[in-house]
C-alpha cells in the first residue's frame, strides 16, 4: 500500500473528471496546495465545483484555474482579491455560493465526520438563511446547514510520513485538516517527507487514514499576499486584523 507518488500528475492520475467537486485547502495564499493546483490546471479538467475559503489571486493559487476557465462554481467565504474572478462572475460565467467562513469550515468538518446537517446561529435573519430551515432551541434561533463532501480534496502540509500522517505549520493549517477528511480521495503535498515514527504520534494533526495519496514538494518560494512589517527603530506596532470588512 504505497501512498507516495513521484509527482503531482501521477498523484492525480485517474482521479480527475469534468464536473467534479474539489476541495482545496488554504486561507488566502497561506497553506495552499499549489503544486497540485498546477497539475489540475495542466490536466485541462473543466466544469469544476471548487470548495475553498478564497479563490486565490490573479495567476496564483486557484486564480490559475480561473484563468483557464476550468471552474464553473465556487463555494467560498471571501473572494476579494481576484480581478479575473470578478470579471467571470459579473459576466455570468462563474457561479458563486458564499458561506460564512465558520459555517464553511463546519460544513466541511461535518461532511468528513458523517454529520449530514447541523444547526448554527451564524447567518440567522440574513441572506445566508434564505430557503433554509430555521429552528428555535432554548429560545434562540438557528439555521440548519448541510455537511459538504467532495470527490477530491487537495491539501498542503508541512511534514508528512509515508503512512500519510500530517503536520501543518502555523496558520497554514486553516482549512486543510477538515478538507482532508471530507472527500472520496484526499491527495496531500508535503514540504518534508519522513518515515513513520519520525513524527511524534501526539503531534499529528491529520492521521494517515485520511490521506489516499501524497507527494513530496521540497520547499519553493511561497507567495505573501500582504507584506506588512514594522521598522526596527519604531516602538512595536500591533498587527491585529480581520477578514471581515
Amino acid at each position: 500500500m504505497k501512498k507516495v507518488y513521484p509527482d503531482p500528475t501521477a498523484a492525480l492520475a485517474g482521479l480527475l473528471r469534468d464536473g467534479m467537486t474539489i476541495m482545496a485547502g488554504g486561507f488566502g495564499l497561506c497553506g495552499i496546495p499549489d503544486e497540485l493546483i498546477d497539475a489540475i490546471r495542466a490536466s485541462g479538467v473543466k466544469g469544476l465545483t471548487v470548495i475553498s475559503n478564497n479563490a486565490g489571486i490573479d495567476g496564483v493559487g486557484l486564480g490559475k484555474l480561473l484563468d483557464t476557465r476550468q471552474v464553473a462554481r465556487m463555494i467560498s467565504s471571501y473572494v476579494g482579491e481576484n480581478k479575473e474572478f470578478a470579471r467571470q462572475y459579473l459576466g455570468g460565467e462563474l457561479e458563486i455560493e458564499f458561506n460564512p467562513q465558520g459555517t464553511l469550515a463546519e460544513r466541511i468538518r461535518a461532511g468528513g465526520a458523517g454529520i449530514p446537517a447541523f444547526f448554527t446561529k451564524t447567518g440567522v435573519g440574513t441572506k445566508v438563511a434564505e430557503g433554509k430551515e430555521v429552528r428555535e432551541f432554548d429560545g434562540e434561533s438557528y439555521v440548519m446547514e448541510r455537511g459538504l463532501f467532495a470527490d477530491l480534496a487537495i491539501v498542503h502540509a508541512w511534514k508528512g510520513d509515508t503512512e500519510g500522517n500530517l503536520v501543518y505549520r502555523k496558520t497554514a493549517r486553516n482549512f486543510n485538516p477538515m478538507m482532508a477528511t471530507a472527500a472520496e480521495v484526499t491527495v496531500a503535498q508535503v514540504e518534508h517527507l519522513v518515515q513513520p515514527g519520525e513524527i511524534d504520534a501526539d503531534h499529528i494533526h491529520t492521521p494517515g487514514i485520511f490521506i489516499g495519496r501524497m507527494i513530496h514538494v521540497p520547499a519553493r518560494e511561497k507567495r505573501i499576499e500582504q507584506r506588512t512589517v514594522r521598522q526596527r527603530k519604531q516602538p512595536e506596532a500591533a498587527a491585529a486584523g480581520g477578514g471581515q470588512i
Partner: protein
Amino acid sequence: MAWTREQMAERAARELEDGFYVNLGIGIPTLVSNYIPEGMSVQLQSENGMLGMGPFPYEGEEDPDLINAGKQTITALPTTSYFSSADSFGMIRGGHIDLSILGAMQVAQNGDLANWMIPGKMVKGMGGAMDLVAGVKKVVVVMEHVAKGKDGSEAPKLLKSCDLPLTGTAVVDMVITDLGVFTIDKKGEGGMTLVELADGVTEDEIRAKTEGAFKVALA
C-alpha cells in the same frame, strides 16, 4: 471636535478587560491593539486559526505561513496557539471570545448590523463576519457616524433599520463613532442609548446625524 481614528480606537480599548480574548476587525479596530493598557493580559484571536497574535514582523522576518485574517504577515507570542478553521470558529460560535471590535456600513437601533455587501456592487463575501457577530459575547462597532458621499452629502449609518443586506440581527452591543458612544440592549426592549459625547460634540449634532431612535444617558 469629533474624535480621530486613534481616539475612537482608544475609546474602544476601554472595553477591554484583563484576561479577555478579543477578535479585532481590520481598519480602526486594528488600532485598538495599540491601546491595551500596560499590565493587562489581552490575547488577540485571528479567525484563520491563531490565538495570541503578535505585532508585524521586522522586515526580512516575514513568514508566509504566519498571517492574520487580513492576510497580513504577523508574528507569534510565547502564548500563541494554532488551530484549524473549524476549531477557530468553534471557539467563536461557542461564545468563547469575549469581545469583537469591527467596522460597519450600517447599524440599526435594535442591534442589526450590515457590513458585507452593497446590492449592485461586486460582492466579495462575508468572510468570518457573520460568525463573529453571531458568536462573540460582546460586539462593539467602531465606525464613522455618517457615510460621506463623493458629492459631499452625508447619510446616517445609525438607522431605524438597515437597508443593506444584514450581517446579523440584533448582534451589536455598542457603537463607537467619531461623535460619541451608544449602547444597544440587543436582547431586550431597551433600544439604543447615547452614553458619551466626543469632545465638543453636542447632543443636537448627534440627533441631526442619526436616523435611529435613541435615549440619552450621559455619564
